């Protein structure tokens, strides 16, 4: 039993003692453990995903060590699960079939920051806090997510995580410039310009093989170095804030204003997500308060650039109001504005505003959904959540223009009570089906989400995915079961 749950999963058969010895031969006994408590600390995360025990934890420091481990794991047919901060909320590092967790935190070097070409090369153990500290010295920034500062930059990027520059640059995965990967069979591969000339500046114009390792949840290889775009920190910034009475008005405002692609971040949150912490269990919104709030972070390298962006925003707002929209300027508290601009942040990243007092659990139906469909999805989500006594604490964010964006509901729950965990899980999965109905797709999906994806996915896509997985990982040892197709 772990956290009150039975150990589940189709555990693969392999010789644990021999694998342990072979790991010690590669890493030394200091960096290998099969202690029950050590394994326990890697058996669960924040989410509703049932805990499952790994068999061995190993902490490699070099590419050569990982290559040796992968070759050994193939011989022994033992599962390997890459792990960095352990901070995702989709159970992505919880082993479905036991095996070795490769904790990559010792690989924490910032290999290069190229100020002129504006890219950085990092190892998997580099945290957002570490990179923010190093980039700031050079007047540079990256897309900092609403996650703990200790979370891995690399893991966030290769799993389609988002940062605070999504309005401007898109997902953090869209900021990847090159990649070094160890294949499940142990070969070392460099992709993008790094694979051709040794320079880490771009994924183009060569074939985009990096896609084999992005969004695959650690099931196709271990990314050991990542090139990412970094950009200059603008001298001027402002946070433009509005409210709206309903999701339809808020969505229309965001689509109109988003067309200019002028904001670094264009996000709106429902009343329940604007509360600190999210009301748990559900409580009604006061009638006299707006249901939606939005912030747009605009930046400029000159005052005139900032002013021009502000002018575009005012124009957008005016046009919406002329069309009868309830959207209007709304002053955010100063602390709330800081939380939008002062990233990485312990406060927003530590789930303080999400789950401060709920009982340890936090999950989401996190999706990339066509923006025009946000209202339909939100209104159905609201019904589902309130019916289940959960707050519809929803966020919508536009990515790089207006065609689609994030739609998710942060869902705190009480881990002391299995019934409450189940209630949250059921609400989230039900909400996910709604998102899929309107064209949304979940990101960083736990298995429950993937089941829903594959019910609807094109057969050719699924078969190709299987072929790719089989080609790269013939013994199915990389995080087996996590992508569900194998």
């Amino acid at each position, binding site marked *: *039993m*772990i*956290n*009150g749950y039975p150990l589940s999963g189709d555990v693969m058969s392999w010789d644990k003692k021999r694998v342990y010895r072979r790991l010690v031969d590669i890493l030394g006994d200091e*960096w290998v*453990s099969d*202690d*029950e*408590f*050590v394994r*326990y*600390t*890697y058996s*669960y*995360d*924040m989410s509703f995903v049932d805990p499952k025990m790994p068999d061995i*934890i190993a*902490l490699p420091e070099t590419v050569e060590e990982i290559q040796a481990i992968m070759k050994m794991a193939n011989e022994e047919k033992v599962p390997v699960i890459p792990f960095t*901060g*352990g*901070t995702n909320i989709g159970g992505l590092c919880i082993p479905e079939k036991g095996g070795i967790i490769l*904790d990559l*935190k*010792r690989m924490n070097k910032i290999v290069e920051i190229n100020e002129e070409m504006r890219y950085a090369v990092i190892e998997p153990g580099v*945290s957002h*806090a*570490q990179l*923010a*500290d*190093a980039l*700031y*010295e050079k007047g540079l920034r990256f897309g900092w997510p609403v996650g*703990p*500062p*200790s*979370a891995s930059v690399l893991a966030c990027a290769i799993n389609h995580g988002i940062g605070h520059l999504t309005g401007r640059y898109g997902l953090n995965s869209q900021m990847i410039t090159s990649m070094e990967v160890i294949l499940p069979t142990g070969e070392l591969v460099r992709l993008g310009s790094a694979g051709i000339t040794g320079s880490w500046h771009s994924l183009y114009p060569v074939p985009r093989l990096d896609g084999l390792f992005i969004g695959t949840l650690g099931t196709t290889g271990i990314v050991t170095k990542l090139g990412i775009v970094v950009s200059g920190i603008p001298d001027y910034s402002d946070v433009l804030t509005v409210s709206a009475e309903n999701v339809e008005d808020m969505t229309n405002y965001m689509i109109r204003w988003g067309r200019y692609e002028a904001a670094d971040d264009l996000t709106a949150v429902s009343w329940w997500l604007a509360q600190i912490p999210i009301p748990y269990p559900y409580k009604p919104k006061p009638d006299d308060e707006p249901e939606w709030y939005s912030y747009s972070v605009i930046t400029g390298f000159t005052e005139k650039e900032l002013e021009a962006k502000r002018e575009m925003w005012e124009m957008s707002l005016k046009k919406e109001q002329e069309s009868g929209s309830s959207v209007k300027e709304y002053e955010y508290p100063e602390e709330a504005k800081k939380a939008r601009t*002062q*990233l*990485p*942040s*312990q*406060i927003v*990243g*530590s*789930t*303080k505003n*999400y*789950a*401060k*007092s709920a*009982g*340890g*659990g*936090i999950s989401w139906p996190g999706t990339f959904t066509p923006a025009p469909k946000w209202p339909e999805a939100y209104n159905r989500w609201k019904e589902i959540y309130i019916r289940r006594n959960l707050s519809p604490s929803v966020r919508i964010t536009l990515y790089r223009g207006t065609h689609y964006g994030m739609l998710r509901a942060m869902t705190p729950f*009480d*881990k*002391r009570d299995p019934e409450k965990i189940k209630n949250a899980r059921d609400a989230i999965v039900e909400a996910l089906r709604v998102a899929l109905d309107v064209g949304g797709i979940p990101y960083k999906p736990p298995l429950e989400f993937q089941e829903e994806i594959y019910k609807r996915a094109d057969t050719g896509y699924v078969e190709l995915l299987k072929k790719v997985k089989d080609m790269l990982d013939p013994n199915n040892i990389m995080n087996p079961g996590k992508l569900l197709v194998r």
Partner: protein
Amino acid sequence: MGFKTLEELKDAVYMCTYCGTCKVAYSYGPPPLFAPICPQGNTFKFDAFLGSRSKSAMAKAILNKEVDWSDTMIKALFTCNVCGGCEYQCQTDFKPEILNTIEALRYEAVKNGKSLKEHERISQNVLQFKNPYGESPEKKEEWMVKKADGREVLYFVGCTAALREPHIPKATADVFDKLGIEFTVLGKDEVCCGSPLIRIGQWDVAEQVMGENIDKIKETGIKDVVATCAGCYKTLSKDYASFEFPGYDKLNFYHITQFLKDRLGPSASLGMKVTYHDPCHLGRHAEIYEEPREILNKLGIELIEMPRNRGNSFCCGAGGGVKGAFPDLAIQTSKDRVKEAESLGVEAIVTSCPFCVRNLQDAQPSIPVYDIMELVQRSL
């Protein structure tokens, strides 16, 4: 009242979301600060050793009877310095109970026969000799150059200062004399404050000595009690407060930096350039950050801050029973801190805790380590 048991802390433990914010020191700034903050995690690396989320996991494992005590688990529990570096980062409702949870886990381990032999020796020493070092009680008066029988202030010297760093009470007594502050001490009757016992889970002995101390303090009839030891101060002012000792609420406890801050006038400038190490017990645990700095400023000392300062101070490595049971680890952590100080190009490291002084010195720094009272003495 009294110490909270693990069962009583269960709800708080479940407020940990396992988010991992506790793993590193970070502040937005600008400029941003990133640095390791967990001494044991910095050394052993496994998540089972890192930050408060590892301790919430341990608490859940024990409370739910999901994992048996193992040697590794005991190591993960007792190599923690209980420094509070993780607690300072935490933003959830687990935060106020993190240190209590670690100490309750240790009590649970001790109850289950899993105490460390080095810690048992500390406990036996306190029972027999009234100090953790096993020295005769009379030795606690050896630092004294003359009788102290003032009625204004009771100076609670503490075991480490009296028995291992006697230059600190000597300097303090001299400062009291020069400032005309009439003080007394308990001398050979002073009993260990209980701090090391509380941190290592030896609660039964701790409660005994706490009661003895309060009785001895009350017998003097003096209301104002001043400590130079950060650990003694934290224990007397915070831990004792959770017990209903009769007459405790009539007593006032001060750390020496609080007590002297407004009593020191302008002095001749010492003209030094130093850095200040915030002791965990004084800084994070008692939130006394500015008083020592104000005193250094009054002494005409240029203070260069280490990157990890105040709430983000990196532990010297001694606390939580680590120096007693894992001396090599304590020195390794101390070397990390000393390196940070040395990189600033300062003349000395100043702190305000005898245990920190001792452990920082044990790292053999290239610059001297002073207790703040030594510099105050020098200025008068």
